C-alpha cells in the first residue's frame, strides 16, 4: 500500500485541482449565464443628477457641438437620428476598452447611420493616465476634434499607457491633429474640462456602472458577455427589430 501512496496522493490532488477548476468555471459561467444580450435590470438615472436629468431618453441627449463644452452635452457620432443609441462608459487606459474600441469601430462601420454612438468618460482610479487622457480628449473637443483625439488615444493605448508621464504624448497628438497646442494645453488643465469629465463619471455612477467598459443600448445595459462584435450585433439587431 505504501508503495502506491505517493501515486494515490498525486492522483488525489490532480482530481481535486480539476474539480476545483471545473467548479470555478461553472460558477463563473453561472454568474454570466444570462444569454440575453441585455442584463436583467437596467437602473434609471435619478433625476437629482444634473447630467442625468438632461437625458430622460438616450435619443434626447443634447449633443456637443464643436467648441462647446456644456456639462450635459455628449459626444456622439454615427446616425444622429438613429433608432439605436449605443452609449459606452470607457476609460482610455483600460485594456479591455482598448480592445473593445476596435470592435466598436467595426460595428459603427457596419451599421452606419442606423447607429448613434456616444462616448462617456469613466476614468478609473487605478489607471494613472486615465483622467489626463479624458482631459486631452475634451480639450481636443473644444477645437472640434474630440473623436480624432479619442481614436488616436485608443489606437495608441499600448504606447502611452506604460509611460511615466503621458501628457507630452497627448500634446504631441494635438500637434499631429494640427490643433492650437497652447490652447489645448491650457484647456487640458481647465476647470471646465475637468468638470465635463466629472459629469460623465457621476452620470455613470448614478447608473450603477460597475466598471469599464460598460455599454448601454437604448438605455439598457448590455451583458458584458456580449461585448464582442457578434454580441453587439445581436443586441443592436434586437433593438432595431423592436423598433420596426
Amino acid at each position, binding site marked *: 500500500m505504501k508503495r502506491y501512496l*505517493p501515486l494515490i*496522493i*498525486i492522483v488525489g*490532488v490532480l482530481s481535486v*485541482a480539476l474539480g476545483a*477548476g471545473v467548479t*470555478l468555471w461553472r460558477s463563473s459561467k453561472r454568474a454570466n449565464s444570462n444569454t440575453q444580450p441585455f442584463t436583467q435590470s437596467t437602473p434609471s438615472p435619478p433625476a437629482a443628477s444634473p447630467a442625468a436629468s438632461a437625458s430622460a431618453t438616450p435619443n434626447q441627449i443634447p449633443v456637443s457641438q464643436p467648441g462647446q463644452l456644456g456639462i450635459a452635452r455628449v459626444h456622439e457620432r454615427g446616425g444622429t437620428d438613429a433608432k439605436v443609441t449605443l452609449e459606452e462608459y470607457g476609460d482610455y487606459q483600460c*485594456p479591455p476598452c482598448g480592445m473593445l474600441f476596435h470592435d466598436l469601430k467595426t460595428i459603427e462601420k457596419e451599421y452606419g447611420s442606423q447607429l448613434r454612438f456616444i462616448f462617456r468618460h469613466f476614468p478609473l482610479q*487605478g489607471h494613472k493616465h486615465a483622467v489626463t487622457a479624458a482631459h486631452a480628449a475634451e480639450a481636443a473637443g473644444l477645437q472640434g476634434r474630440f473623436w480624432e483625439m479619442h481614436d488616436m488615444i485608443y489606437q495608441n493605448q499600448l504606447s502611452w499607457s506604460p509611460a511615466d508621464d503621458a501628457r507630452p504624448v497627448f500634446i504631441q497628438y494635438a500637434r499631429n491633429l494640427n490643433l492650437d497646442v497652447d490652447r489645448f494645453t491650457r484647456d487640458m488643465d481647465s476647470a471646465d474640462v475637468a468638470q465635463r469629465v466629472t459629469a460623465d463619471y457621476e452620470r455613470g455612477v448614478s447608473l450603477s456602472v460597475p*466598471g469599464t467598459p460598460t455599454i448601454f443600448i437604448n438605455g439598457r445595459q448590455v451583458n458584458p458577455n456580449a461585448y464582442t462584435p457578434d454580441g453587439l450585433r445581436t443586441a443592436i439587431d434586437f433593438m432595431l427589430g423592436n423598433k420596426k
Partner: protein
Amino acid sequence: MPSNKPDTFQAEVETSPARRSATRQSIYLYIAAALLSLVGLADSIYLTVEHLAGRSVQCTITSGCEEVLTSTYATISGLPLAGVGAAAYFIVFSLAILAAFGNRRTGDFLFYVVALMLAVSLYLFALQAFVLHAFCQFCLLSGAVTLLLSLVVAVERFYFKRK
C-alpha cells in the same frame, strides 16, 4: 572463518544519526515544496479559469491586474500562460511527493524544473517592472511561491545532501 561482511552490511544499513537527520530534513523540505506548489497551483488555476471565462481579474493590493493579464505576454500561442504555470506546479507537486517517498531521481529532476521555473518567473517579473510598468498581485504571488520553492529545493540539494 569469521567474515566481516555482516558487519559491513550492518554498517551500511545503520546510517549515522547525522545522515538519518539529513534524510528526515530532506523529507520535510520535499513536503514543504509540495505544499508550496499547491499554493501556486491554486493561484494558477484561478487565473486560468478567469482567463478562459473571459472575466477581468481585479487586483485588491496592486493595481495592474488588467494591464498584465490582458497583455500579449499573458498567452503563448493562444494558451493562457497561467495554464502552463498550473501544469508546472502540478509537476513540481508530483516530483516533490515522489522525492519525499524516497525516489532520488525525482529529487534531482525537481531541482532542474524549479530552476527553470525561477528563470521564467524572473523574466515575467522583469516584464511587469520594465515593459508593462504594472504589477498583478496573483502573478507576484506565483513568483514568490517559485522563489520559496527554489530556496527549499536549493537547501535540500546543496546543504543537506552534503552532510
